[in-house]
């Protein structure tokens, strides 16, 4: 190379140098998340809140945007909405006209192992469990008394989520930490035992110091206390025969009685603002109007701060249309005209007719001599003669966003009404049913007293007279008291009135207008195919 060329290389060198200074380096590939909407600072209180908010909220923005669950419309991913669908639509209580993916299969008891709503509910429940597991991992070994209480509550919430899984899907993966390792499948009976152990721990009857607060010492509205765990134990014992093959009627009765003996929670017997006590339970101000006496675990809604397209808005708006809104305002401009009653449910109140055929819910509570007969019948026919017509079949407007104290709703669309996940009336019916089961099929004194309390609160008078009460009557009473609260399927299965039988039929059962038997394997939902594929430890439930 000739020396003079060096001079000419200078510009080249300048370019090379320039390029090096401009380029930064490969180190730029090590990025940090600069999105201000995310953080890497943990906050256990906020995680704790998420474990509960999973009952109502569907994402981090509300009512939609940044949803928690994939492959489902965010509002449709609501836990309450899908519990409701999974437990009401396949039963004698409700039928939905919508064409949303998954609805027709619920209506007709015709689901397979791929079903978007059933799948979304499964992941919604596991999402709650995952957050709970993570919270417990993060707070392991704490000595802070408040955090210990939080841990007990989180364990309760996890047991509640697992209880739903046990009831709906039977044999499900059991996981208590957040890990990439595939969870083993747990048989339904074993899961029952595991949940029982967890619940006993957190009410102080098991091991460890992680105990929930007594009802009277409840930390804050919306948080679970021992009464919630007692009632959940009672519920699981009541269904123990279904879950494990071994009945546990006495324990079901005992733990229900614990709730009532404690006395913090009981039936709400006085109404407000002209509304009956029963109606008051399901209104927009049920966090303040006295209903908190009965609601042991509320799922909190707030028209401004806690919005969802599922939850109570779904329960309220899905049963209403414009005509109902005009004739019987319920505190939201939302009216989705979807869910209405199958005639067998109406007959629980009007076995021989006698309803007001063009009445509002209040008029029908008068006609039915029962505060719970909240049927909107004006313009509707009794029978679902056409599946795609909302006016075929009565509407049932039990929930409302109006405030019993006369105050205004916070929002035109989103509701303030808290959804009762657990309420004291269940303790009464658990006692009644367990008592009847222990008494060869009819209620003894304890049972009759419980029934009487329920029916007195509903201002039923003597229709039908609670002098003898059989299991069939109790099954109907479950429907009258808890209709549209998202549990009917569980009750029908316990009474042998669901899959695999043709003694009790309802319209469009099995997809036939007059009702048709459907197979027993449908008493348990399938493990979603998506999880069967992702987790090789899982085996599908029988029949799918």
């Amino acid at each position, binding site marked *: 190379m000739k020396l003079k060329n060096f001079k*000419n290389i200078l510009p*080249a060198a300048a*370019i090379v140098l320039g*390029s090096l200074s401009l*380029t930064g380096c*490969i180190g730029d*590939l090590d990025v940090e998340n600069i*999105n*201000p*909407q*995310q*953080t890497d600072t943990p*906050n256990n209180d*906020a995680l*704790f809140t998420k474990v*509960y*908010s999973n009952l109502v*909220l569907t994402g*981090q923005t509300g*009512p939609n945007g940044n949803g*928690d*669950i994939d*492959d489902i*419309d965010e509002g449709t991913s609501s836990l309450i909405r899908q519990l409701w669908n999974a437990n009401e639509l396949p039963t004698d209580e409700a039928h939905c006209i919508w*064409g949303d*993916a*998954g609805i*027709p*299969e619920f209506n*007709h008891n*015709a689901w*397979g192992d*791929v079903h978007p709503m059933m799948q979304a509910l499964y*992941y919604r429940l*596991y999402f709650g469990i*995952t957050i709970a597991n993570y919270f417990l991992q993060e707070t392991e070994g704490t000595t802070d008394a408040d955090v210990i209480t939080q841990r007990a509550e989180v364990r309760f919430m996890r047991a509640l989520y697992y209880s739903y899984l046990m009831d709906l899907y039977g044999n499900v*993966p059991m*996981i208590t930490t957040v890990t990439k390792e595939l*969870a083993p499948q747990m048989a339904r009976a074993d899961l029952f035992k595991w949940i029982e152990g967890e619940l006993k721990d957190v009410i102080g009857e098991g091991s460890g110091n992680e105990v929930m607060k007594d009802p009277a010492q409840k930390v804050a509205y*919306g948080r679970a206390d021992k009464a919630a765990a007692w009632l959940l134990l009672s519920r699981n014992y009541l269904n123990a025969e279904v879950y494990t093959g071994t009945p546990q009627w006495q324990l079901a009765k005992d733990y229900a009685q614990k709730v009532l003996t404690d006395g913090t929670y009981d039936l709400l017997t006085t109404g407000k*603002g002209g509304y009956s006590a029963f109606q008051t339970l399901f209104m927009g101000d049920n966090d303040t109007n006295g209903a908190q006496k009965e609601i042991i675990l509320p799922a909190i809604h707030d028209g401004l*701060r*806690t*919005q969802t397209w599922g939850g109570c808005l779904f329960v309220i708006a899905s049963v209403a*249309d*414009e005509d109902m809104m*005009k004739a019987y*305002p319920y505190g939201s*401009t*939302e009216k989705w*005209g979807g869910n209405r009653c199958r005639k067998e449910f109406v007959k629980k109140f009007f076995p021989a007719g006698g309803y007001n055929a063009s009445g509002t819910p*209040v*008029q029908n509570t008068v006609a039915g001599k029962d505060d719970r007969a909240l049927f909107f019948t004006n313009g509707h026919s009794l029978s679902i003669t056409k599946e*795609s*017509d*909302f006016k075929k079949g009565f509407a049932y407007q039990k929930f409302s*966003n109006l405030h019993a104290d006369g105050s*205004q709703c916070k929002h*035109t669309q989103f509701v303030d009404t808290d959804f009762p996940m657990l309420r004291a009336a269940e303790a009464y019916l658990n006692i009644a049913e367990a008592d009847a089961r222990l008494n060869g099929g009819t209620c003894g004194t304890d049972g009759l007293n419980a029934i009487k309390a329920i029916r007195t609160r509903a201002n039923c008078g003597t229709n039908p007279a609670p002098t003898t009460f059989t299991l069939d009557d109790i099954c109907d009473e479950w429907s009258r008291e808890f209709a549209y609260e998202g549990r009917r399927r569980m009750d029908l299965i316990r009474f042998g009135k669901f899959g695999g039988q043709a003694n009790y039929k309802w319209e469009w059962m099995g997809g036939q207008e007059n009702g048709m038997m459907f197979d027993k394997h449908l008493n348990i939902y399938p493990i979603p195919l*998506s999880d069967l594929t992702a987790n090789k430890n899982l085996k599908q439930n029988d029949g799918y």
Partner: protein
Amino acid sequence: MKQVNIRRIPVRLLALIAGLFLTVGAFAQIDVRGHVKDSSGEPIIGATIRVVGQSQGGVISDFDGNFTLKANQGTTLEISYVGYQTARVTAAANIVVTLQDDAQVLENVVVIGYGRAKKSDLTGSVTAIKPDDMNHGLQTNAQDMLQGKIAGVNVTSLSGEPGASAQIRIRGGSSLNASNDPLIVIDGLALDNKGIKGSPNGLAMVNPNDIESFTVLKDASATAIYGSRASNGVIIITTKKGRAGQKARVTYSGNVSIATPKNLLEVMDGDEYRTFIGNLYGTNSKAYKSLGWYDQKKTGTPTPTYKDGKLSGFKDYYSDGTQHFANTDWQDEIYRTAVSSDHNLTVTGGLKNMPYRVSIGATSNNGIVKTSNFTRYTASVNIAPTLLDDHLKFNINAKGMYSESRYADGGAVGAARWMDPTKPIKATQNDIYKEYFGGYAQWISDAAFIDPTWTKTVNSQATKNPVALLEQKSDKARSKSFIGNIEVDYAIHGFEDLHIHMNAGADYSTGKQTTTYDRNTAYGNDNYFGYDGWSDQDKYNLSFNAYLQYQKELGDAHHFDVMAGYEYQRFHQETDWDSFQYYPMTSQKTAEEEQADGTKKDVNLAGTRYNAPEGVTKYKTENYLVSFFGRLNYSLLDRYMLTFTLRDDGSSRFAKGNRWGLFPSAALAWKMKEESFLKNVKALTDAKLRLGWGITGQQEGISDYSYISTYTPSNGAHAYYDLGLNGGVAYRPDAYNTDLTWEKTTTYNAGIDLAFLNNRIEFSVDWYYRKTTDLLNSVYVAAGSNFRNKVMSNIGSLHNTGIEFATTVRPVQTKDWNWEVSYNMTYNQNKIDELNVGGAGRPVETGGISGGTGNTIQAHAVDHAASAFYVYQQIYNPDGTIVPNTFVDRDGNGIINSDDRYFYYKPMADVTMGFSSKVMYRNWDLGFTMRASLGNYVYNNNLSGAANTGTGAIYTLGYVGNRSLDAVNLHLDNVSIEQQMSDFFVENASFLKLDNITLGYSFAKILDANISGRVYATVQNVLTWTKYSGIDPEVAGGIDNSMYPRPFTTVLGVNLNF
């Protein structure tokens, strides 16, 4: 200066400069004084003039294009200049030489990734086109210029909305969830072609008039040099430049266009509808009474009403009045004839050795849906100075764009089809309309329960008045973009074979959309408080690349061209938004507010914000790409060519360890024509065989931080859950996957290029096979193992295989007549090979439709094309009509559920074709372009969504909705969701479109003024032949649902050169 092979220039110019110093031999000589100019009369500087037969000597023209030379009288002089055809003249004392553009020379050099290449040396599947100045339709965006022009490149405009984007697909889609858009490179700068708020078309900032050429790199041997961003092909756009020493030249081009709606959906008119409702429900029904409008009068003040002793609402203090019926053609009311215009002004020239080009453009595009428009101003500057004896070359580009859009409410197109035709646009006689809806007729609901001073609201489920949707909403966006880059090329003194090339660029854009609804509009569901909101987006992308290039001839046989480089790119993006409504001024609502002294007080909310966001609204994200790349070209005997490229890309979107992706490619070409056995075949002008293989990557479509563990706190105002902690804030841990890595596409390509009869007939055929593995997919993970049920992972594979054929024939080439026809055809088949996303063999549903929440009509599944239709199999009556709600029980289990769906055709065409013809006779030109698409199917959601015309569907939720005549004629009165998802609604949407016809006349002078130019008239979107029953069979994605219709447009335009 026109595009030429850069690497050859310095050598040539050096020779020219050397020539200057040589003296010319002298005997019997005269002084020749000459002037060299181009066809437009501009002087050409630097042209070489030499005496034929003398291997040495010669002069070059000066800055005025003049030269002097001594030569024997009568000898022949040869005048040459790069980019022009060489001219020969007889030596005389005074000569003027006009050089003609050498189109062939220009066409022979194409821009490729990080460099240029002679077309004849290409080994990959590369198509370069120069936009046809004459034969084209309305060109608002760069994509419009590619439509139907290139085999294997499919351009579909997304709608007829002004400023709308277009979907470009090169050889089908390589991906399912990641991007299928090609990489777009402008003047060496890879563009983020996602657009900006207010200007969704990423190419909108490039004025089509500034575009010199497109190069489309289709196979991996050509694209792999772009590595991770090239799986869907690369489109390289080069913009026009000035020429050294050229006098300033001004050109103007402009046009005016008139757009009219083409086909509209036929729906019932007012009278038909009244009869229809009367027949269906009876004239005493609620449905019938809901028709039309009433002259409702306010008669009192609101008083509470009680039912059973409880407050049940407020007394309707409006009298009912009498029912009136209007007859409104809603579609007529929302569409219009829209006039648009486009103006461009360019100044090109060269200040000595600094060529420049400056252009400005203004486009005003009015949409056929009232209120919609798009205005865009573009400016671009290019200077390309050369320094240091042409060793150092700069190419500096700056492009700016400012656009303003007003969007018509997207719901108006659909609402115009559904709105009750018996309703008037406005009814001033109606006090409710007047008080709550600005006079517009709307469907009404009661809302007294929240506010007794505001007792009416819009029926949120009902169709909104389409005219009100347009006129009561102002939805405007402004966006600005700037792209600038500096390219430097330095041929090292003394080592001219070695170049250093550097390109530094930046792309800044910002856009803001402001949306306002009147206080009394039927906005959304929550109308009566109005709405104010904005959202904005700011982006900047920085990039830098540098490479070294070395070329060497070893003897006559071997030619090497080696290049190695480095690239750095940074993409940064921020968005923010705000939106809120108002409590009405009359509102009596109160809220508890904490005072300064700590006490709480109830404050009236009248006129204050409602539904405003709380918390963080800003969103920020960025990612980086760092790459090393290299290319080796080797040619033997100018007959056998080998190209090998390698790129190593590092992306910040993957965790360390999975970050780097290596993308190699190799290709061979054989110039058969050069072989002895073909060399003398006169009819054959050219013949070349190409073979290529390569791997490209993909990392689009995943989030920038999907491997980093973080929390998302509750955000917005509505996701708090108050347990007395943190004000109800909840944290959600974010799902993450540290195993994520590149999606990879391997392409095989074989092609042959043939030209006959001196390029009068050209053929090109390519076969390709593209296999994508490690597909980026959102995949189910075991419940409980991560914080989401689905996490982005690398699962699955698919392939595209196809054949492309392109030909250009010039049947007539005479002095007066010139006729050129070109045709291209692509056959592409797309199939998914492996997919284990939601369960073995389980289809992954996609393609949401209107009609039920969460319903989809398409699915990805193994052995089927991506997004194939996934439907129920309809059962038909013997007369061909459908049996309602009755389907084949395909799994034979006695029940019809979603497992009975099957795969039925797909939205992507099997075959696409483009055909264009241009005839020139003297100054006249006539051209047209046609496009065909075969085997593409469309789900007619417009029809399926309206199919139910029974009592349960027309009047529901308190309102009635119109239906198309096609829907009424189906006579369905009970439509299940399965019925909506029937194969009946999937239609063959194959089409042949006559896209445009253009007639033009070129002139050299206007009234003695030295102005040349051309005037032309074009009609666009002229004719469509199809069996599809909907409005337009061309639907990107295959689901036809209330698309903003593409208009029929007439364009009158002029180009002037001053």
